[in-house]
C-alpha cells in the first residue's frame, strides 16, 4: 500500500516551540488531507516539552511523537537525526517536512543521508503526487527559480521559513511518548550552550515585520531609530545590511542578504539602504516593502511598494510616532 502518512518535525529551542514547528505541521496537514493519511509531528526536548503538544494538534497533528529527555535540552543533532531517521525508515510516510531554519538546515540533510534518501531543500512551493514531488527552490541569490522533481518513497523537504503560514486545523494530537534511537549522551557532536543574542527580542526568522537599517544611518548610534520603529510595531525584528554588520554596528547574525539571512516577512522597511544586489537577494520576496532613502535613484526603490525620498534620520522619528498612534487606534 502506498505511503499516506506525513511526518512533520516540530522545531523547539530552549524549551520553546518555534514558529517553524507550526509551519511544518501546517504543510504536512495539507498533504495528509490529500493522501488521506495522518500527520505525525515530532517534538523533542528536555523535561516538560510535552506540554507543547497541544499547539501542534491545533495546527493539524493527528499524533504528536514526544521525545522528552534531558539529553535533548540543547539541540542534539546526532541523536535527533538518528531518531527521526528510525521513525521514517519504519515506513508509511509519503513525505517528511522540515523548515529550512538554522536548525532545520542542519537536521534535514542528516536525516536524508541516514535514510539514504534525496532531499529537496529550501523549497518555496511544492506539490506532492503519488509517484513524484515537484518543488520550486530559488537559487542564484533569488535571481533564478529552479523547478525540480523528487522521486522517493518518502520525500524529504525543507521549506523556506514563511513559505507556509501556520493555519488552525484542530486534530486530536494524541500524544505518543517515544525514546531516542541512540543514547543521547553518546552523541559526538555536543551543543554546550545556546545563547540568546543581546537585544534580540524577536528574531528575523519569526517576525512578521522587519525594520532594517543600512549605511544611510551614518553612525551606529542612529540605529536606535530603527529599534524604536521596530518597538512601535511591537511585532518587528531588526535587521541590517552587510555594510552595517561589517562595520560592527550590529552582530553578523542580523545581516540580511545573499550571505546572511533570507527573509520573507509580511512587511519589510528598509531604512537608509541603497539596495545592493547582495541585500536584495535576502529580502526581495517580502510581501510589502517600504524604502526610505535620500537618493531617489537608489535600486531599493525598484523593489519597494512604497518609497519615501528623504533623510532617514528626519523621517524615522515621525514614522515611529505615526505607527504608535496607529497601533493605539487598532
Amino acid at each position: 500500500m502506498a505511503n499516506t502518512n506525513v511526518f512533520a518535525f516540530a522545531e523547539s529551542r530552549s524549551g520553546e516551540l518555534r514558529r517553524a514547528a507550526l509551519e511544518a505541521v501546517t504543510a504536512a496537514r495539507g498533504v495528509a488531507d490529500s493522501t488521506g493519511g495522518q500527520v505525525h509531528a515530532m517534538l523533542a526536548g528536555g523535561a516538560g516539552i510535552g506540554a507543547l503538544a497541544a499547539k501542534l494538534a491545533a495546527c493539524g497533528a493527528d499524533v504528536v511523537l514526544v521525545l522528552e529527555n534531558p539529553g535533548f535540552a540543547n539541540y542534539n543533532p546526532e541523536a535527533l537525526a538518528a531518531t527521526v531517521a528510525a521513525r521514517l525508515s519504519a515506513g508509511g510516510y509519503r513525505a517528511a517536512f522540515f523548515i529550512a531554519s538554522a536548525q532545520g538546515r542542519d537536521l534535514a540533510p542528516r536525516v536524508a543521508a541516514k535514510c539514504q534518501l534525496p532531499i529537496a531543500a529550501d523549497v518555496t512551493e511544492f506539490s506532492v503526487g503519488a509517484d513524484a514531488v515537484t518543488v520550486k527552490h530559488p537559487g542564484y541569490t533569488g535571481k533564478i527559480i529552479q523547478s525540480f522533481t523528487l522521486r522517493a518513497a518518502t520525500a524529504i523537504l525543507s521549506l523556506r521559513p514563511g513559505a507556509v503560514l501556520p493555519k488552525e486545523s484542530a486534530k486530536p494530537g494524541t500524544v505518543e511518548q517515544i525514546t531516542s534511537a541512540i543514547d543521547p549522551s553518546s552523541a559526538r557532536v555536543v551543543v554546550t550552550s545556546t545563547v540568546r543574542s543581546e537585544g534580540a527580542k524577536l528574531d528575523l526568522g519569526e517576525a512578521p515585520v522587519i525594520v532594517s537599517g543600512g549605511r544611510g544611518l551614518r553612525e551606529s548610534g542612529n540605529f536606535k531609530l530603527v529599534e524604536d520603529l521596530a518597538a512601535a510595531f511591537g511585532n518587528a525584528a531588526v535587521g541590517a545590511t552587510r555594510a552595517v554588520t561589517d562595520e560592527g554596528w550590529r552582530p553578523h547574525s542580523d545581516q540580511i542578504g545573499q550571505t546572511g539571512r533570507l527573509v520573507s516577512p509580511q512587511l519589510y522597511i528598509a531604512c537608509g539602504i541603497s539596495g545592493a544586489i547582495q541585500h536584495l537577494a535576502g529580502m526581495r520576496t517580502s510581501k510589502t516593502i517600504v524604502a526610505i532613502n535620500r537618493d531617489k535613484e537608489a535600486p531599493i526603490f525598484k523593489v519597494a511598494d512604497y518609497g519615501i525620498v528623504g533623510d532617514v534620520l528626519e523621517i524615522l522619528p515621525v514614522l515611529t510616532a505615526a505607527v504608535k498612534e496607529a497601533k493605539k487606534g487598532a
Partner: protein
Amino acid sequence: MKIAVLIKRVPDMDLRFKIASNGTSVDESGLKFDISDFDGYAVEAALQTKEKQADPAASEVVVISLGPDVVQETLRKAMSLGADRAIHLKCDTPVHDSYAIATALAAELKGGGYDLVMFGRMSIDTANQSTGPIVAELLGLPIITAISKLGLEGGRVKARRELEGSYELIECPMPAVVTIDEGIARPRYPSLKGIMAAKKKPLEVKPAQVGEERYKLDKMELPPERAAGRIIGEGKDAVPELVRLLKEEAKVL
C-alpha cells in the same frame, strides 16, 4: 594536520542572468566565475588553520572540486592562495541531487586520512546547503554546520553557530567535517608569487563517481518582476500617506 576543502565554481552573482535555450542552465556568455563565496571562507579558514600549526610545512591543504574541466581554473586559484594540491573530480554533465554529488565526494575523501574536511555553508548558486552533511554521514564522521568561529583544541573542534537571534557553542572530536559560514575570516588575495607557484602544484584528475540522480532539475525561470516601485513622496510630510497605505492598501498595520 591534513585538511580537505571542497570548493565549487560559480558565476558572479552581481550580473544579470539569462536562461540558456535548454531551459535548465544559465547562459554562461559574458559571466565571470570564481570560488563560491562560502567556499572561499572555507579555503581561508583551512589556510589559517595550517599556518597556526607548530610546523605548518608538515600540514597539507587539499582542494577538491567536482565539475567539467573549467573547474581546474578554480582549483588553481585556491592553490594560488596557498592550498598545496588539488583534485579535480571530472563530471561533464551538471548534477543537482546533493545526495548524488555527496556520493562522489565521499568516495574520494574516504581513506584520504583527513583530520578536517571543510565545506562552505552552501554554494551560492544552487543554495541547497545539503552536500556537506550528507558527505559526513556517508563517511561516518561528526559534522558541525554553518560555523562562524572555529577553534581546534586537544583533538576537538570547538565552534560557534549562528541561529536566528541566538547562537550555539558546539564541539566534536576530530576527524570531523565542518561547513563554514560568513564571519570566520576575510579571504586573502592571491599574490603574484602565489599565482606562479600554483602553476607548478600537483592537480590530479579523476572521474567523479556520481550517484543516481533522484532529484532532477526540470527548468529554470527568471522570477516574476516585482511591480514597479512607487515613490509616494519626499521627506517627513510623506509619512501620513505611507501609514494610510500600510493600513488600507497593504493591510499590514
